């Protein structure tokens, strides 16, 4: 599936929920079920510091595609991280660079993107794209 197709799939999933409670419950479930980053990759240099919750993110290139793994100390952040990984992981660096990521707004989670002292989601998206730019430059 393309990045856009996965985004649309997530938007449809979230449309099934009737209220914000269910949306957040879904995010919490996603956070709980997300495969963890390998402990050896949970190092200081993989830490994306948000003011309130922290995110560790690791990326590697496999057969021309980037695979991301991540973890967070906050469960809602982790749910959002899980969504980002589902959308971007296993795509080529160029596809990731070009992605618009409109789904965040469509599923009503835009406020988590505000560049305030919140959760580091914005920094995480930046980091994911920066990694893609780095891999693209190498290839």
């Amino acid at each position, binding site marked *: 599936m393309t990045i856009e197709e996965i985004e649309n799939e997530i938007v449809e999933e979230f449309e099934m929920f009737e209220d914000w*409670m269910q949306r*957040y419950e879904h995010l919490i479930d996603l956070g709980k079920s997300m495969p963890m980053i390998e402990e050896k990759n949970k190092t200081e240099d993989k830490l994306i510091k948000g*003011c309130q*919750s922290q995110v560790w993110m690791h990326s590697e290139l496999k057969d021309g595609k980037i695979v991301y793994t991540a973890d967070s*100390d906050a*469960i809602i*952040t982790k749910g959002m991280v899980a969504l980002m990984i589902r959308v971007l992981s296993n795509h080529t660096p160029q596809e990731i660079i070009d992605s618009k990521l409109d789904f965040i707004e469509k599923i009503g989670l835009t406020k988590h993107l505000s560049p305030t002292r919140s*959760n580091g989601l914005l920094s995480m998206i930046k980091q994911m794209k920066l990694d893609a730019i780095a891999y693209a430059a190498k290839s």
Partner: protein
Amino acid sequence: MTELKTSTSLLLNIEAIRADFPILSRKVNGKQLIYFDNGATAQKPVSVIDAIDTYYKNQNANIHRGVHTLSQEITVAYENARTTIQKHLNAKHAHEIVFTSGTTASVNLLASSFAKKNIQAGDEIIISAMEHHSNILPWQQLCEEKDALLKIIPISKEGELIIDEFEKLISNKTKIIAVTHISNTLGTINPIKKIIAIAHSKNIPVMIDGAQAVPHTAVDVQELDCDFYVFSGHKLFGPTGVGVLYGKEKWLNELPPYQVGGGTIKTVTFEKTEYADLPLKFEAGTPHIAGGIGLAAAIDYINTIGLEKIAAYEHELLLYATDALQKIDGLKIIGTAKNKVSVISFIVEGLHPFDIGTLLDQMGIAVRTGHHCTQPLMQFYGVPGTIRASFAFYNTKQEIDEFVKTLMRVINMLK
């Protein structure tokens, strides 16, 4: 803590008070707003909003400069605002009240100005383990620049300053002590009168950070005998961007100006400048005139209610909320000092404060989560952050009931 025997709720007409704060009737995420983030900033009564509105609509002019009517009127109003603050703090002179942009600016002004003449390499400055970053960083930076030493008064597990240890920290190198009156994270009311007395017995000046104290308690700077007292307008139900540095006349006369420029001078030639008298030598540039006027309106407002009644009612809210929160399984209150204001920091075992805060917000409840600009304090308690509910006199027990009920629902969602 013991339960108050008599209810003080009857002393205040909370319904009428709430009607004075327009924002309290708004909805957030479809729910009636419950505002428990008063420690970050307090809401504004309509009298403050009107004072600012009137200033811009009818009074706007620059102060201390013009011969025209508007300028003279607003200069009088601004200086009256200074007098209102002087009386509120029971300062000896109006010129001991310096307007700044807030607590942070006041501490920076003092640290910078004080250091110019009074700090040499090897000197020592004492602060406490429960300071806000705004009362750590200016001193820390100064110590780095001057090769001075920053010493820290330790606290107990309950969140109280250990006074015996404080006395041991004082040496003949100690040049100034800067301590918070009330902890923004823990709510602890510090024994500042005792600290000031100890410091003065060794001729050391003391600055008190009153940012969290002025909304909750009456402050008498002459009775305390503090050398400096700083606070912000916005936590005192006034506008943002205005604050106060109170300093004893003798100190303010001695200290050199911090920022210089328009308004701070008597005469200027390219060779030499003669600076203005107090307080103008510390007030460079056009000040936040509306802020000063608004702050005076806020002080007038709380004085019509009375800080004693406010303190008694808020104490009742503190006991009520503490009691209810303690019953929640896995919840731990951080900061259990004997003397506290209506600020409760807590953590819930296994859950991240950010998650709890995010879900509470979805249900219309505003609390603060995170480190509250007191990272060293978080390190002391070994937590990444806390959830902080801080109450003002317009909050109610019904809101606390709703908060506790919602919190339990949130905990269930996250577990």
